[in-house]
């Protein structure tokens, strides 16, 4: 699965990259530092999956999603738990709280891959 990491904090991206490194099926194709950057990279790289921070300078994560015509699978990553309900209105696959627990991420990845596999079978 092609994944794009969207977070304005470099260290948060580094940490997420490190946490995702054991999962060989997740292929990180790029990183974006804000909504504008992410919109450009989504068009350019066409990822299957985005890990998306909510609080960012300029547009926030939700506002960014509203500008997309076709939305990839979204996993929110944030320190705020109060956006969880809103996140699912945006068809979020999952909602991870920072600092992300490795075991919790493992479950998320497992479900992501299952969903991806099903979608591929349906597409064939």
């Amino acid at each position, binding site marked *: 699965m092609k994944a794009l990491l969207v977070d304005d*904090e470099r260290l948060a991206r580094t940490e997420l990259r*490190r946490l995702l490194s054991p999962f060989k099926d997740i292929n990180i194709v790029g990183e974006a530092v*804000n909504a*504008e950057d992410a919109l450009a990279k989504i068009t350019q790289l066409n990822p299957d999956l985005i890990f998306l921070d909510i609080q960012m300078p300029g547009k926030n994560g939700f506002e960014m999603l509203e500008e997309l015509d076709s939305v990839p699978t979204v996993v929110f990553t944030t320190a705020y738990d109060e956006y969880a309900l809103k996140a699912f209105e945006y068809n979020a696959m999952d909602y991870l709280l920072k600092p992300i627990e490795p075991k919790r991420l493992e479950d998320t990845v497992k479900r992501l891959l299952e969903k991806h596999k099903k979608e591929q079978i349906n597409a064939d």
Partner: protein
Amino acid sequence: MTDFTRNINLTTRTSELNSNSQIKTGENISRISRNSAYWISQTAGWTVYAAANLAALYSFEIFTWQKASLFIFICMMGIALTHYLRIIIKRNNWTQLPLKKIIPVVLISSLVIGIILSAIFFAINLTGYFYNTAEFKPMTPAIWIFNLSSVILLWQLIYFSVYFFRNYKKVEIEALIWEAAVKDFELKTLKSQLNPHFMFNALNSIRALIEEDPASAKTAVTKLSNILRYSLRIEKSETVSLADEMQTVKDYLDLEKIRFEERLNYSTQIDERAAKIEIPPMMVQTLVENGIKHGISKMTGGGKITICSFIDDSKLHIQISNTGYFNEEDLKHATGFGIQNTKHRLNLLYGETGIFQIKNSSQNEVLAEIIIPSGGKINESFISR
């Protein structure tokens, strides 16, 4: 309802009351209603008295229009004199006198007004047009003075009882408002002690830093524990020195700098004398947090925050300026307590002498300023109670 929710309800009501304009309007309304209540009682009381006298005149004496109009005139004089008495009572603060002094003052003033009214009565009778003075017995003047003085005495009894009853309630309500306001303040301070999101974000960046730069990660953990310790310590203390508060603010900014990296820059400039002044804990911290949350973190290119403090004209000035734009409309809809809380705390602690203002100092810079007396708090006793 649990105690806790009751507290919250009480505090919401108090914070509504605490807005200055509302208190002033409230006072105006009660002053107007008090005045009209006074005039209604004044007119009604004397009308009843006049009616009773006319009824007595009709039943026991020979009723003449001259006598009746004299009675009505005396009652009107009564209204005028007691109204003047009320002005004297207010001007000389008789209501504040101890009971031992109030009693003779009330007795003597009643007698004096009784004598004046009687004198008017007899002076008018010298014309011979109303009463036949020959009918008067030697005791008549004394009876008139006694009667009229008793009426004034009754008037004063009612006046003072109404005053004391009303005042007693007012003092009680004021005490309740203060108590609730203090609780409100304490509740909010507790809430403002640590922003959990800041903690989680800081911990998240520290975890990344452990691999990348272990030495910086260690420093960050130390700074985070300093902040935690400070937040526990201030639960017990009413004030901290500006220097203490600034240490925490710097630790906080250093941790945020780990997150925002080159997007956050800060500088501090604290006058040596200002650093020693005691201030309410978390006051600067809350505003710095606000500046980052609403200002710098919203700017794609980041920004700068400057904290500057000095003493001018025996007042402590704390100025916090940050990159960003302050929108007053947003403030009205905001549920956040940063600015409201600061204003409320200053008002509780320093009354009129505590000032908070926030404005756009240039197109992309917001300036927040606190001005407090450098001598300390005014309402100290309330908080320590």
